[in-house]
């Protein structure tokens, strides 16, 4: 009995003592960053890449000091399922319930209804969205696009690729949404610049997101005998099926995929040899930096699968943000946005980064990083080109 009492007393003392002690976790305040992204549904891979990119950045940042106080990054995830209504609910919860002032938000299509909230609250939005001048403009000074925009990609590569391949006829097959419509315009503008050289835009078709049968749309495109079919930001599964079904219909030309980050193995598994000659922008055939390789390996080790394409840009943006906050020593999002917009960052996983797009968007909120292009051959990416991503 006495022994039991003694053991109980020791346990009680230990418990109370541990709870009261200023442990490492209690010594720092949380700095919340929201991952307002789809982590379920067909676009889950993009969202998980963001979530994990933030988590890796949080690990590497560790404890940081702002105005004499210690902070630690706390990643808070809100599942948007890539749907506008759920994104509105998510950002409302993040901002008004949980006091989150910074975050990564995926999707051009989900942005229009949340932009008023961003403007009103000064939420600092790292937009993972290729299309949409409505995101990047002077009315949204706290919205930063952390990936190459489709305007930037088409400006950088359309003429270059057509000339390199000697292509004369270019067609477009994109998703039936804001991204697809915006990018069809962007590519037409670029192709028009080559009119004098006999290059023309011959056809455009659209498919519903999640579609698996592209044969009907491809029939009309292929009848126009294109040398290149631009597949816009079609995700891996879609581009693989597009390539497979187009080859079945007798198409032998190239495909160019602009905004999506594609997985070579998955394309090869789905389309086999039909996947050859897909040119993908934003794909590094060879890792551009040591940090890039290290992050890919850490992801593989931690989560047991290849890193989703959104991982690196998210990681880079998060590290850049914390650096800026520490420098300006405040969490005021407007002050941080001003400082961030005028800064550059040498340690981005893709190489030196800065902000540009002032001429096109009226504000320097478009990331400028090296933009690679790779071509798929025998199931592997081979280097096609790397361009500066300088954007006006």
């Amino acid at each position: 009995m006495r022994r039991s009492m003694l053991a109980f007393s020791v346990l009680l003392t230990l418990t109370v003592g541990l709870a009261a002690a200023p442990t490492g976790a209690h010594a720092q305040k949380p700095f919340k960053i929201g991952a307002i992204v789809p982590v379920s549904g067909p676009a889950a891979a993009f969202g998980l890449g963001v979530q994990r990119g933030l988590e890796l950045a949080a690990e590497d940042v560790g404890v940081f000091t702002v105005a004499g106080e210690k902070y630690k990054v706390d990643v808070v995830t809100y599942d948007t399922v890539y749907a506008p209504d759920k994104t509105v609910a998510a950002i409302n919860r993040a901002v008004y319930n949980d006091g989150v002032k910074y975050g990564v938000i995926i999707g051009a299509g989900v942005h229009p209804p949340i932009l008023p909230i961003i403007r009103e609250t000064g939420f600092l939005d790292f937009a993972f969205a290729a299309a949409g001048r409505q995101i990047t403009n002077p009315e949204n000074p706290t919205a930063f696009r952390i990936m190459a925009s489709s305007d930037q990609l088409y400006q950088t590569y359309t003429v270059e690729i057509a000339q390199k391949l000697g292509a004369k006829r270019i067609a477009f097959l994109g998703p039936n949404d804001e991204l697809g419509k915006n990018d069809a315009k962007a590519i037409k503008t670029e192709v028009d610049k080559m009119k004098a050289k006999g290059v023309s835009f011959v056809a455009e078709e659209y498919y519903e997101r999640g579609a698996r049968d592209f044969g009907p749309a491809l029939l009309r495109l292929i009848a126009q005998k294109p040398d290149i079919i631009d597949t816009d930001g079609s995700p891996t599964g879609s581009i693989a099926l597009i390539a497979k079904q187009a080859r079945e219909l007798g198409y032998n030309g190239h495909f160019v995929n602009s905004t999506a980050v594609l997985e070579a193995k998955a394309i090869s598994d789905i389309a086999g040899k039909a996947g050859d000659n897909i040119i993908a922008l934003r794909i590094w055939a060879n890792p551009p930096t040591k940090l890039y390789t290290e992050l890919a390996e850490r992801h593989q080790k931690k989560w047991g699968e290849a890193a989703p394409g959104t991982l690196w840009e998210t990681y880079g943006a998060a590290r850049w943000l914390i650096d800026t906050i520490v420098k300006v020593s405040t969490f005021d999002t407007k002050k941080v946005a001003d400082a961030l917009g005028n800064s550059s960052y040498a340690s981005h996983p893709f190489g030196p980064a800065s902000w540009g797009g002032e001429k096109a968007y009226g504000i320097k909120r478009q990331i400028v990083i090296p933009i690679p292009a790779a071509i798929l051959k025998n199931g592997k990416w081979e280097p096609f080109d790397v361009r500066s991503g300088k954007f006006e």
Partner: protein
Amino acid sequence: MEVYPHLLAQGLAIGVLTGILYVLVALGLTLIYGILHIVNFAHGEIYMLGAMGAFYCLVVFKLPFAATLAVILVASLLLGLVVERLVFRSLRGQWLQLVVASVGISLIIQSLGWIAFGIQEKNVPSFFTGVVSVLGVRLPKERLLAAAVGVVLVALLYVLVYRTKTGLAMRAIEEDEETARMLGVDADRVAALACAVGFVLAALAGAFVAPIYSLNPGMGLEAILMSFLIIIVGGLGSITGTVLAGLLVGVLQSVGAVLLGAEIAYGLVFVVMIVVLIVRPAGLLGRA
């Protein structure tokens, strides 16, 4: 755009092959509704499990194709029996509760699917690559195989429902369960069998469609939407109506895209379907 005859012929061929794929996926749904009057929202997830089963058996465990089909058949049969016994039987006749239950099953399977199968798209390598060219019309071999399987399954289902004693019992339950019971039909056993066969058809459809498309745990959603469209337009519970509606949707999508563009054709399908339902509210071959 000028429409060449061979382009139209190619569009028609793709439409028919795609239509048969739709029929293949919708068959199990029409059977379960026809006999049990259950709108089984989990049908798409059983289709997804069949496709994932094909991936794991063929690609991960390297089983032969016949063994793969056997595993999928037995597993889906057992799953159908279990779901019928534990969920559907106790809620029989309660339409709304059954809808909620099947939506619940669907969401549970899909959520577990994302956890178990991961986020990366999966693929089953095709056993029949290449195309057959008939008068300049290109027909992918793997789609021809899936279409052949679809035709065989339709025929088998037709024989089961209209040429066997079990089928007679199924139809008797469909007509009037009380009277069927009084006449000695073991309604619970027949209902369990119908549910199990419905699950088997969905899973086999997934297995045969797997080499044609890429796979992910969300793939059932698109399948279920198209399947519902087809069985409603075909006439709920009608096998022949399902076949007709599946072919109609496939051809409309494909030929419509050739003539008007894919964007317009997508909407055109729904316009035609609405017109069909206004003219024949019970569907093409459904009974009012």
